[in-house]
């Protein structure tokens, strides 16, 4: 007995998206997805590269209806895409410049794609492999996280109940998060399939883009973003349309920034916690709650400092890379990340992996990447490389790692203060950095 369920869990005349030309109904969207599904290349895997969330959503639905699995690359480096396609040769690129060869917007405008009372889409089997999200780990090779349809469905139902709670009726959403990122997928792609959410077509980046995107949708508005973008928005000096709820994830958000955002938009900021492996699992209203509340579907166990998440809809247990303290069955406090994990601009990296790549640059005999202080957003590096300039080292790294992980500055030193056994303590590291960092020798 196989279970299956609907891809689009909406009523036909509701709005699912805001395009350049106006709102798109669920019925129009469903017909377009069904139509596009028949035009896709016959491959098992698809790399959906659309930055526009509506195009991405249409591509995702069409691919899923065609039984394909959407690959979500961790960054847009050509090398990353090439590496993924080597591992998944039965794949194609969908999106600007992709081999899909179809313009999704033409399909939306097709008169055959008309309103109809009945969505008539085939159901999706629970066991269908729908997406693979890649995360970086200490081995350096991206790890695939397999997302079957039942996991995405149950996770999204949990997200709807948690993230949209107390928001009655239709909401209109703008997201600054790329849909290829798990946080983007859980919001701009999956929420419109399971709730009365209509997603705006813009992929806003600068505060001015966000302002205009919010002006183009009616109330009630929901903004999905990350601390990096919210900080830019708060610092912009612009004013914005009212937003009923701001959803923020991927990195810790300070209380003062949360307060500034709530004042700016007039709504509440719900901070959200999760990881690619488990999806979103907990939330807190940042300005009035200290502890995190776990969503009902998840169970948390903490033993010997290791936090583990389980749920009926997850294929296995997930060991968190965060340190947490359980304060009640479904409540916890966040204590910090495990040492190896770095998260910059919403992208996850492994210090072990980054350091190994640094040491393997030809001409580098020793090196270390680190955050000079807890407030630093970027990694710095100290390197022993007698015959190389810092720019050469950066060039070598640029081809292999996402730009946000490139260290700045790269400081050359004669040797690193390792102990006899080769260990490098943070104190020794920082003491040396204080002496050698740019500006250290400058007269006060």
């Amino acid at each position, binding site marked *: 007995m196989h279970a299956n369920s609907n891809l689009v869990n909406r009523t036909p005349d509701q709005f699912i998206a805001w395009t350049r030309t106006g709102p798109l109904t669920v019925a129009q969207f469903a017909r377009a997805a069904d139509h596009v599904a028949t035009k896709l290349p016959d491959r098992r895997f698809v790399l959906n590269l659309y930055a*526009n969330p509506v195009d991405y959503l249409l591509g995702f639905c069409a691919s899923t209806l065609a039984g394909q699995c959407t690959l979500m690359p961790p960054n847009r480096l050509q090398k990353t895409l090439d590496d993924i396609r080597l591992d998944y040769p039965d794949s194609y690129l969908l999106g600007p410049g992709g081999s899909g060869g179809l313009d999704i917007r033409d399909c939306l405008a097709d008169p055959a794609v008309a309103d109809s009372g009945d969505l008539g889409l085939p159901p999706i089997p629970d066991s269908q492999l729908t997406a693979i999200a890649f995360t970086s780990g200490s081995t350096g090779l991206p790890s695939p996280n397999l997302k079957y349809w039942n996991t995405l469905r149950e996770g999204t139902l949990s997200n709807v109940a948690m993230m949209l709670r107390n928001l009655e009726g239709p909401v209109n959403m703008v997201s600054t998060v790329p849909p290829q990122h798990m946080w983007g997928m859980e919001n701009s792609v999956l929420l419109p399939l399971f709730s009365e959410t209509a997603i705006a077509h813009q992929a806003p*980046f600068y505060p001015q883009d966000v302002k205009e995107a919010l002006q183009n949708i009616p109330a009630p508005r929901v903004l999905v973003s990350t601390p990096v973008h919210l900080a830019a928005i708060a610092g912009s000096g612009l004013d914005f349309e009212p937003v009923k709820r701001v959803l923020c994830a991927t990195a810790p958000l300070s209380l003062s920034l949360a307060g500034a955002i709530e004042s700016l938009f007039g709504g509440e900021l719900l901070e959200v916690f999760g990881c690619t492996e488990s999806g979103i699992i907990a939330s807190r209203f940042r300005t009035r709650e200290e502890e995190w509340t776990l969503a009902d579907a998840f169970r948390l166990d903490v033993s010997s400092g290791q936090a583990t998440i389980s749920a009926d809809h997850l294929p296995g247990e997930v060991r968190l890379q965060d340190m947490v303290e359980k304060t009640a069955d479904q409540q916890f406090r966040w204590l910090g990340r495990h040492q190896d994990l770095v998260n910059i601009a919403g992208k996850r990296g492994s210090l072990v992996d980054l350091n190994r790549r640094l040491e393997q640059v030809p001409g580098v005999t020793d090196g270390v990447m680190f955050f000079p202080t807890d407030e630093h957003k970027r990694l710095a590096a100290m390197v022993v490389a007698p015959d190389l300039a*810092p*720019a050469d080292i950066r060039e070598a790294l640029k081809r292999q790692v996402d*730009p946000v992980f490139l260290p700045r500055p790269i400081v050359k030193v004669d040797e690193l203060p390792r102990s006899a056994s080769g260990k490098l303590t943070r104190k020794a590291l920082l003491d040396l950095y204080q002496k050698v960092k740019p500006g250290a020798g400058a007269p006060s």
Partner: protein
Amino acid sequence: MSSQTKQESELARLIVDSLNLEDVEAGDIDPEALLFGDGLGLDSIDALEIALAISQKYGVQLKSEDEHMKETFRTLRSLNQFIQTHSSMARA
């Protein structure tokens, strides 16, 4: 390399200062070299920082088209042109 105009020098200084680019001399930035990816090697966090500094100093808000940071931000020269165009429109 093409030499910097006075406005471009001022903008180069702003970029170096707001991003703490310790190993770059503002005067060495080629006005026609790419700012992002190759060339100066800036990334998305830098784009937001620079946008903030530019809004504060010149009163101009950066916007992206469909692809982030493409034409406006391509080079020091193109970025300066954008700022000058929008500053004068604001004054008109």
